[in-house]
């Protein structure tokens, strides 16, 4: 599909208009945080990091570091005792008294150059007393495991998260529906398996970077690459005790987020370092190595799952335990375990469910949100078990999914009624796209061909009341500025905002510009650009703001013409009357108003529209059962099918085709959805081969893009087929729901199912590798012999 440049696009919703940010991004003009010029007043900071996975800090001596010429300040946890966190406030800005992972920052140095700061960090002397460390969640839940947070019970926590003080469990979510025990005897097929996934990293191309300025007046500005300008204002202001109005977070384009730049990661460190050198902006920039150590990772998971069905293929019972390896701090990760708990069945209607989902502290890098927020992790096991159940009862895996997938109006596992969606239509689209029923020959005798399918669901996982807001203001020529707080990470949020504002107001798309960079001093509130919630939530706010402006315009014109506003409309920037057929171009009136027709004076004035949106219907869930009227706002669902070949002599996989289809409600910009689908399929494929590796002392081994490989241009599937279904979402703008994360949720299990189809071999643990596949083939040959 191609996008052509038009000069005037009416009714842009539903059209693949050109991205509003594309010119700047193609010419090098797009500004990212590290590109902002600060002049010679700028200082640079580096962090000194712990060489131990778990240790007490006995003493820190900064005197030698302070003697280095050019060093302006050295800050330690004693100078910055603050804790920071989204859901569970457990994370120190700089370690104090104890370090809990290799690479935890223990001190920060501010100097006139990055290299001087780096040199001085090596002169910060820290005396440690090593403590026993624990790295695997299944070890960390044992009663005799080293306790990583002895004061877990004292941390501030939101009301829907339940840490278990005295253990390493930072959240335990319980789901109880029906009676699994009495259902097992009814099952004709039962599959029970343990699945595992390692920690992986987001690897955005732009490393984390922040510049903080603490002025003598107490005003603080933070320029930063973040998905969460407003959440950072709130969390950092609370943590560091800055009045909210005094903290300004300014965030230009973000060079990839994928959840890694959600909430607060390293940004609070920049603020406490800037506090030590008031009046100077301080830049703290992560090296690529630090990205793999000192930011956040996708959590690891161990899943013990048992699912059963009857002979006709009806799912009857599921029992599952999820243990997320949350790393040293679970301030954000606790809500991933919760989300995995209330969605623990995947997109299936199962009458009897017992689910337990825990996040567990370990002495590894901090776990946090990553594209899919718990869903890629749990679908890895669920979708492989579903395939095996289908096989056991002799049913086609696609048919098994059509039969059991959650449907509109079902009472799902939490007791909530499923809003309108269509999983089955997505299954049909992807099976058609890869000729599911056709058995195809491999391209060479030593190769095996296989096809696999997987389906998914995901709800935006967030507090019950995350808000969005928007303001629209006209320029004198009738063009419109849309102000939002949602961030442009590459997904196209700014373009979609412009389309929606233009559509709701009756302007050509090209008349609308979105105001960036996001600046909490001027941009309207947006909770965070996460959870695939922006098209829906921000979209509702933008639509409301545009409709507010439209109403004001029509009222002024109607009064001037002595007509009824209901008879008026705005088309391509001109107010028209269906009754009198009169016309009034917006450019003559949206700032200066209109002269009264029969008398002296004027009417109207500058048009400013405002809109906000917040879901008001999400309820609490019962602590013991996870039951409640409305667990989440909605779900987005989808299916993926993979067609691949395995080379039995090398274990290498050739991806022939990945087909994806999602129920997006309404495609606001169809080609932008395709870009998400394609990028997500490759991200999902790549993630199946990725793993952070650690030595026996918890030190990360592959801290570079050479040792931690992400997919490159030569690794991609020969073809990616994207499609969508449009079952409107009741409270979505034009019916739209989000799809940014869903596009990679079920890719890894779809690949695993295709490998099994090709080879008859199952892999329970990620990562996959050619070596692993080759060795499994060898092992099978030996068993046969």
């Amino acid at each position, binding site marked *: 599909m191609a996008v052509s440049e038009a000069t005037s696009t009416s009714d842009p919703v539903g059209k693949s208009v050109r991205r509003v940010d594309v010119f700047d991004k193609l010419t090098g003009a797009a500004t990212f945080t590290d590109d902002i010029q600060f002049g010679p007043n700028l200082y640079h900071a580096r962090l000194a990091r712990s060489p131990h996975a778990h240790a007490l800090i006995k003493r820190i001596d900064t005197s030698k570091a302070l003697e280095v010429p050019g060093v302006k300040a050295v800050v330690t946890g004693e100078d910055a005792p603050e804790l920071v966190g989204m859901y569970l406030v457990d994370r120190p800005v700089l370690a104090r008294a104890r370090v809990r992972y290799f690479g935890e920052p223990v001190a920060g140095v501010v100097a006139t150059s990055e290299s001087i700061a780096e040199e001085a960090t090596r002169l910060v002397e820290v005396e440690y007393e090593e403590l026993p460390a624990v790295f695997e969640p299944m070890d960390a839940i044992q009663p005799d495991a080293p306790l990583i947070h002895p004061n877990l019970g004292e941390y501030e926590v939101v009301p829907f998260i339940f840490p278990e003080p005295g253990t390493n469990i930072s959240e335990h979510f319980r789901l109880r529906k029906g009676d699994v025990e009495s259902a097992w005897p009814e099952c004709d097929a039962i599959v029970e398996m343990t699945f595992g996934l390692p920690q992986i990293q987001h690897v955005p191309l732009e490393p984390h970077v922040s510049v903080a300025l603490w002025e003598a007046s107490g005003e603080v500005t933070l320029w930063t690459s973040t998905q969460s300008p407003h959440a950072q204002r709130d969390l950092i202001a609370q943590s560091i005790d800055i009045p909210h109005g005094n903290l300004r977070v300014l965030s230009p384009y973000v060079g*990839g987020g994928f959840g890694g730049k959600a909430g607060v990661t390293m940004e609070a460190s920049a603020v406490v370092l800037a506090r030590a050198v008031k009046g100077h902006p301080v830049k703290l920039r992560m090296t*690529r190595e630090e990205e793999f150590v000192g930011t956040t990772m996708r959590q690891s998971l161990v899943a013990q799952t048992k699912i059963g069905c009857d002979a006709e293929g009806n799912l009857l019972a599921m029992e599952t335990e999820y243990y997320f390896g949350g790393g040293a701090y679970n301030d954000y990760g606790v809500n991933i375990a919760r989300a995995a708990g209330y969605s623990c069945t995947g997109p299936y209607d199962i009458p009897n469910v017992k689910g337990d989902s825990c996040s567990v502290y370990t002495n590894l890098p901090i776990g946090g949100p990553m594209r899919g927020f718990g869903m890629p992790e749990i679908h890895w096991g669920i979708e492989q078990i579903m395939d095996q159940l289908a096989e056991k009862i002799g049913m086609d895996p696609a048919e098994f999914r059509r039969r059991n997938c959650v449907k509109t109006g079902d009472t799902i596992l939490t007791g909530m009624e499923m809003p309108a969606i269509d999983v089955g239509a997505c299954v049909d689209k992807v099976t058609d796209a890869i000729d599911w029923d056709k058995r195809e020959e491999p391209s060479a005798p030593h190769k095996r061909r296989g096809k696999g399918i997987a389906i998914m669901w995901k709800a935006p996982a967030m507090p019950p009341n995350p808000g969005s807001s928007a303001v629209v203001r006209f320029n004198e020529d009738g063009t419109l500025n849309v102000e939002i707080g949602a961030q442009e990470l590459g997904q196209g949020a700014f373009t979609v905002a412009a389309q929606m504002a233009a559509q709701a107001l009756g302007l050509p798309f090209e008349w609308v510009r979105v105001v960036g960079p996001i600046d909490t001093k001027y941009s309207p509130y947006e909770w965070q650009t996460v959870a695939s919630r922006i098209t829906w939530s921000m979209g509702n706010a933008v639509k409301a703001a545009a409709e507010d402006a439209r109403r004001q315009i029509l009222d002024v014109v109607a009064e001037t013409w002595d007509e009824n506003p209901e008879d008026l409309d705005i088309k391509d920037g001109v107010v028209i009357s269906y009754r009198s057929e009169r016309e009034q171009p917006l450019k003559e009136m949206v700032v200066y108003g209109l002269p009264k027709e029969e008398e002296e004076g004027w009417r109207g004035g500058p048009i400013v529209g405002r809109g906000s949106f917040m879901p008001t219907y999400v309820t609490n869930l019962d602590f013991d059962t996870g039951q409640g009227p409305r667990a989440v706002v909605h779900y987005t669902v989808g299916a993926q099918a993979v067609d691949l070949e395995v080379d039995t002599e090398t274990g290498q996989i050739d991806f022939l085709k990945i087909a994806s289809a999602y129920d997006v409600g309404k495609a606001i910009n169809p080609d932008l959805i395709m870009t998400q689908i394609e990028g997500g399929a490759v991200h999902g494929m790549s993630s199946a081969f990725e793993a952070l590796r650690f030595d026996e002392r918890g030190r990360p081994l592959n801290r570079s893009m050479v040792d931690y490989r992400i997919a490159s241009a030569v690794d991609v599937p020969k073809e990616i087929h994207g499609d969508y279904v449009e079952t409107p979402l009741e409270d979505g703008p034009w019916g739209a729901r989000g799809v940014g994360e869903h596009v990679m949720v079920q890719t890894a299990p779809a690949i695993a199912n295709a490998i099994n189809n090709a080879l008859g071999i199952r892999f329970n643990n990620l990562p996959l590798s050619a070596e692993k596949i080759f060795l499994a083939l060898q092992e099978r040959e030996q068993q046969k012999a």
Partner: protein
Amino acid sequence: MGSHPITVTVNGAKERLNVQSNETLLQMLRERLALTGTKNGCSAGECGACTIVMNGEPVNSCMVLAVEADGAEIVTVEGLAKDGQLTLLQEAFAEHNAVQCGFCTPGVLISAHALLERNPHPTEEETKLALVGNLCRCTGYLRLVEAVQAAAEKAAPSVPMKGDA
């Protein structure tokens, strides 16, 4: 640490600069000339975000010392479009929605630009190989390849070879 006078042509403009012995070409471009279109993704030659053209060859500017650029001709992403007019390559990237977050984009464009300079009609496979040093986490690469192929076709439509039916 010494300072060295160098003369270098960047996007057609001759510059005389005093650079440090350990200063990389990437630092020189971003910090001395404020040509921030060239991105720093790893400082280790791994990601390709800092790719520039030096004497006709695409190179990772983080792996080249500024002193090595003495007398060189450099092209950065800022040197592609002239007077706000996108090149055929840039236009193809816009048409094919081959841009998402935009952080790898300058490096990708430069690698593709250098490819088309030396090989006006690359095969898809040649294009993928030319972009193998440019990591991208957003797009999944297929549209990058499509855009390069489309730009090549537009710049010099392929003529049927003799003997083709």
